[in-house]
């Protein structure tokens, strides 16, 4: 079974878990959403899909190999029309979310986790909260603000909401979408065993990792600039993973100073005393999904730093070319957070997922054509 998206930290958070997702077209949305929905169903979560009729039909076909009616219910999946959420911040908007979040089923699932041991894999997910997948409908500035007020409030509805937006939307729409969706979810990996498993124990290993990723991506149909960009994105994610591993080792040794600074921790570039981060590379036709998994030993960052971005629409205008950047790219901040925006410039999507004993940086690259 394809694993669904893993969202947020294992510790339940109040309010909504609100993420964004950029997709190329309907087929891409269905391809990405199907494993997410399947994973949520497998986790016995309530699933609500708020999409147009054509998308609903395609998704239902993929999930159940059957046709969908106007408002089908498919083995626990509830399809709702976009009108259920199209007026951001309105009373109807809030009512829909509260209805989905406040079901008896969701409540029983949350109660069931209290009986699970600390190592139960279900703690790696949000506490079985309802899963809502919707297509982003841009609203007025007031409506957008209203939606954020509901979804980002600490006492908001306890529900996971994934909003999908077309990656070729108007720049202003994309900009607003990114403003309102700080966290981007990435899809579950293609089914099957990883095409490549490797580790990064020191920076010297990165050249070899790049060669292997290039080989695997080429076999998956990547070529030209897409291939180079994918390799670069995976490399940047691996560097972050390596630095996080160094930091985890520091904390395990009782040294709170982050060693994940620019350059190598020591002359030979070895993360002394750390467990290597591992890479798992999965491919599908024209798709590359790489998980850089960092054992954290239970140590968590001070804040959920999962940020993600898709490829930029164009080069950003620098505010001041002379001023040095406030923070060097690729650093692990003292609070343990990382920024992956620079990785996202070279791939379709990137995100950070915190689990009980590990942290994963996921890179999704799509080949053109």
């Amino acid at each position, binding site marked *: 079974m394809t694993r669904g998206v893993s969202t947020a930290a294992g510790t339940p958070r109040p309010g909504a878990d609100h993420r964004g997702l950029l997709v190329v077209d309907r087929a891409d949305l269905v391809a990405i959403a199907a494993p997410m929905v399947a994973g949520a169903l497998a986790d016995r979560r309530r699933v609500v899909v708020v999409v147009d009729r054509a998308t609903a039909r395609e998704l239902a076909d993929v999930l159940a190999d059957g046709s969908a009616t106007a408002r089908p219910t498919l083995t626990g999946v509830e399809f709702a029309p976009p009108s259920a959420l199209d007026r951001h911040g309105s009373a109807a908007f809030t009512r829909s979310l509260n209805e989905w979040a406040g079901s008896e089923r969701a409540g029983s699932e949350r109660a069931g986790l209290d009986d699970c041991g600390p190592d139960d894999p279900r703690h790696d997910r949000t506490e079985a909260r309802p899963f809502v997948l919707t297509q982003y409908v841009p609203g007025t500035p007031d409506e957008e603000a209203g939606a954020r007020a509901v979804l980002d409030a600490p006492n908001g509805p306890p529900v996971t909401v994934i909003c999908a937006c077309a990656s070729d939307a108007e720049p202003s729409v994309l900009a607003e979408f990114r403003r309102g969706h700080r966290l981007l979810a990435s899809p579950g990996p293609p089914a099957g065993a990883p095409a490549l498993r490797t580790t990064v124990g020191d920076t010297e290993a990165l*050249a070899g990792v790049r060669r292997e990723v290039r080989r695997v991506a080429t076999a998956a149909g990547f070529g030209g600039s897409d291939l180079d960009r994918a390799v670069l994105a995976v490399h940047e994610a691996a560097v972050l993973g390596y630095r996080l591993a160094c930091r985890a080792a520091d904390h395990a040794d009782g040294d709170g100073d982050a060693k994940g600074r620019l350059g190598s921790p020591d*002359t030979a*570039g070895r993360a002394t005393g750390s467990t290597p981060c591992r890479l798992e590379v999965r491919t599908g036709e024209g798709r590359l999904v790489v998980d850089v998994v960092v054992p954290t030993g239970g140590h968590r960052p001070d804040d959920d730093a999962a940020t993600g971005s898709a490829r930029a629409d164009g080069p950003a205008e620098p505010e001041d070319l002379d001023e040095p950047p406030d923070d060097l790219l690729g650093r692990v901040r003292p609070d343990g957070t990382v920024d992956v925006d620079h990785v996202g410039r070279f791939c379709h999507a990137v995100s950070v997922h915190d689990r009980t004993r590990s942290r994963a940086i996921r890179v999704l690259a799509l080949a053109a054509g």
Partner: protein
Amino acid sequence: MPSPAWEGHEDAWRTPGSGAHALLAAPIEDLRAGTASWVGRELAAGSKVYYKGWLEGSTNPEHHWIVGPWGAPGGREAIGSGQLEFLDYPTVIERCGGTNEGLFRLQLDEVEQAFDEGWGTVAMTQETSYRPMLDAAEATQFAGQERAFDLIASRWPVNTLCQLSLHDERDTAVWESMAVHHRDLQSLQWSARILEDRWYLSGELDVHVAREFGAAVHGALRSAWRFPERPDLEVDLAAVSFLDTACAQIMMLAARSAARYQRMILRRVPPLVREVIEVVGRPRSVFYDASYGVGLANTPAAHVVDDIPRSRAPRSRRPGSTGTGTGASERPVRPR
């Protein structure tokens, strides 16, 4: 183990009629392999080779690895015939008195001796020296020694190869070595060379080599600044097959910290390399070459340079050069 980056390009080190001064930086195993190959080629080309290094566990140069089974081709025969001469470092220090001037005299004596013996060209190589490099004074002394090799190479057909064992030397020693040798250096993943006043980079520049690369960039900027009529550093990136944000940041930070009014002009920049540079942020002192216009559509016009003259009056950039010929008939003159 992948082949060293310099394989297939060794002939570039040997420019007929003039000398060269290069650095080979690698882990010890690759360093020895590259050095053995270099010495073998110099021997095959008929050079007198002077080798300075460490004798480990022996006082007999014939036990040194360079003439052993994994050493230079023809090395054992050469040390027997006198074409290859070995000097261990303690002896070097004793003979030169531990001073730069004394070392320079020693090197000039060796060059003169080689010409007296009838050799047409000379090759000098020295192993990694394990300098502590604890302070600026030592770094200055080291730079002075290296400048002597530049001077010798500019005046006589002498090729010099400095060896640097990356994993065994202190970080400061690596930094200073890379900075001083920015004109011609070879590392496993990347290389750099000055040709016609342009600094050519090649290979893969990633976080693993970021520190040494940063040193080389600083060295190149410092060196360019010594010529006030044209202080800009022109960097050719056409052969850079990979650049990550770590090395891009290193380069841009070096440009920010360069002297005022000194520009860094990037030439023949591959599109993805340019994108990485834009992601990390490019200061106003860094420009792109307009003649390589692929993908420059979104670059502000002020950062595209098309007024760099294509040809300039020949001018030696190496210190001490008289430009009066460097043939073997010109004998070294002892300094007073």
